[in-house]
């Protein structure tokens, strides 16, 4: 079957595997992480047709024909995406295991709601966990990013 990932088409083997497994193991897109495997941590967040989806919960075959965006697809012409830059500027990570997931959730949020309030950000990002506790700076990064996006 064919998956559209980050703007290119990839032939992958059929089979009942999660999107997360296919991205990491077959396509080598290891920016997407597994934290919990049960849809609770958001480390595996990718965008499917612009909507944030837990890669650990969805089967690869369910996203055939859709546009998949992973953290690897955010940079344009060697330039960081403004959200990535905002995460650096606001020091919005420590170990950064959660960071790709947060950045993609933020991208989805700002697509849906270009001018979110702090409460809306908290609500939207509540499915992404950061064990290092970088939330305060993540909030600031999202606020900074929305001014730029």
């Amino acid at each position, binding site marked *: 079957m064919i998956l559209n990932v980050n703007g290119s088409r990839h032939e992958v083997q059929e089979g009942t595997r999660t999107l997360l497994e296919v991205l990491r193991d077959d396509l080598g897109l290891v920016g997407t992480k597994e934290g919990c495997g049960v849809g609770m941590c958001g480390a595996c967040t990718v965008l499917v047709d612009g909507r944030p989806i837990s890669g650990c919960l969805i089967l690869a075959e369910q996203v055939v024909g859709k546009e998949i965006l992973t953290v690897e697809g955010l940079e344009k012409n060697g330039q960081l995406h403004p959200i990535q830059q905002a995460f650096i500027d606001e020091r919005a990570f420590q170990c*950064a*295991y959660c960071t790709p997931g947060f950045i993609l959730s933020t991208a989805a949020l700002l697509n849906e709601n270009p001018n979110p309030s702090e409460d809306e950000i908290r609500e939207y990002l509540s499915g992404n966990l950061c*064990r290092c506790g970088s939330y305060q700076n993540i909030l600031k990064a999202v606020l900074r990013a929305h001014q730029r996006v």
Partner: protein
Amino acid sequence: MIGESVPMLDSLARVTGTLDYMINLRLPNMLVGKIVRSQSPHAKLLKVDITNALQVPGVIAILTGADLGANAFYGAGIKDQGVVAVDRVRYVGEPIAAIAAESLDAAEEAELLIDIEYDELPAVFDAQAAIQAGAPTLHEKFPNNIFKHAKLRHGDLDVAFAEADEIFEDTFTSPPAQQASLEPHVSAAQWDGERLTIWTASQAPFMVRKTLSEIFGIAPEAVRVIVPPLGGGYGGKGHIRIEPLAAAMARKTNGRPVKFALSRAEEFVTVTKHAASITLKTGVKRDGTFTARQVTLYWNGGAYADASPLLVPAGMVRSVGPYRIPAVHVDSYGIYTNLPPAGAYRGAMSSQTTWAYESQMDIIARKMGWDPLEFRMKNLFVSGDRFATGEELRDVHFVECLEASAKGLGAPSSPALLPEGEGKRGRGYGVMMKSTVATSKSQARLKLTDDGMVTLFTSTVEMGQGGHTTMAQITAEALGVPLSAIKIIGPDTAITPFDSTTSASRSTSMMGNAVVAACGSMRKKLFELSAPLLETPPDQLRTKNGFVVANETSISFGDILKRNNLNELNEAGEYSTSLGLDPETGQGVSTPHWHQGAGAAEVKVDTETGRVTILRYSAASFAGRVVNPRMAQLQNDGNVIFGLGPALMEEIVFDGGQPTNPNLADYSIPSIRDIPVELTSICIESDEGEMHGIGEMTLPPVAPAIANAIEDAIGVRIKDLPITAEKILRALREKSQP
């Protein structure tokens, strides 16, 4: 450079998802490893038959207890834990066998075909039950299940209690919890003849090296330990975990590497936070001073001693609290039970002990009619005081920490009633005093090349705390080079020098000092080499921005090497401390410096639902001298947020030794919705300017500050963590019933 908020050196990799965590490691011919675990909490192993499992296509080898030699046991101090179980299992989840296969599917199929027969033994899960007469014994060497008893004896307790006007006795408990780094434990091993390479997500590469060299009877140098950046550690990766198993497995695969990556469920049976029951008996006088304190600590160590022989004595020191108390006795017991082994959990042992002593501070203050803040201020240690170990305290700033936290909350407001239906508000405080590692060593090596580039070889583990960025900043300042000229390598025990461990917030201080020493030697060398070129005596030279500078002239580091026909210069530095306590009396020196932190909470409690909202939280830590202010603040904030977990939600619930919530759906950790509406924190510095680590300081005060604020709000006292809505409602009901 020191004092500048530079972003983490590898920020780009962190936001693009390209940082090379262990989980990404792929080696040629690599096999996938799978651990087969005990389903019984305590049993004799009658049979572990792998005959059928070995027939599964794709299965390359299976490791069982039958493969192990006599030295295949490990543990910090007490070597009681087998690489896999040999003839007996002692907790649900204990490794019994391991499978190396071409695919996870093959390994999982083989797992189903391993035939294990158990002969069940009686089990015990509670630490205090385990020390009762007649309780099942886990290890014959310790018939009463107490594997460690640490003692502190300071002053005459009976006399001191007799002088008290009031004596308080309270017991505070903490449940087992999970460190829950988002990156699990991952290790890969490969043998080349009698040489072993292990890649592992560990906070302590040299501990791994030593342990593996002992288990396999090879020289330490024959073991190479490589540690990529970690996706969080928090103590959970601070000791030996799956490295021995990975290495023993790889010994059976003919030189092919095997990689083990634990599932989230496996994480819950790999290491936990010690469940603890802590009883404090404290004597006070009506003038608001202390006379005596007796502390009894029961630490549930789980089925194997693991790091507990070190942590139980540390917990003893960390249980006394930051107050002047003339007589103090402590008994700290490490106890075996049929639960997974316990280890360090961010703010190791202090997370449990601060919960106890700071909760009791408010109980005392309320009963005696004192203001909790003033009562603390009056009794807090200041520099020059002596701690219960007899050691003199220097550079202690508990008062400043507490003052800053309290101030951060804003103008004091008494527990005012909110508009109907909106719950009640209250404020509470907590202060923490924690030792770091008494005896440890850090070494650093610097290489300067003739292009002016500096490479720092260090075994400090980068686990998100910014350890490598910190070391680069220290190098930049101490050597006088721009940050952009510095590259960091390590940990890789084949090329980076010794370091005890990246834990207990010791690296900024210990490794930082080793780096400073290495920079000092390098500068001295550069001065010697450049003095003739600059026609200036070495003692009149200084370094700046990659140049040696004399009064009128200067020369770049690179040119100094070139003019001396050198390709590179190598210099090393070392810093170590060797301190400790008398095992019988607990007297001596327990730490090179003290970890100091405080917190102040304002909460809102909904008396209908029991729900607690943290409206404001303000934290302070003592940092000596801050290397990177924004990264330091992130540590402070992160600690508070981490600390909300054990305070309000985290508990592994075991049923018959079986964890019932080993996943992040049923075991909650704080999300962005749980953080305080307003969170502020500061680092306090001192003129003496010693650099301290701050990876834990503001965590332990969180739980007691919240509990104290809750009592301030609604007049009920919770003594067992976590503080859940159900417990609050129950306490409210009990209070309203006469």
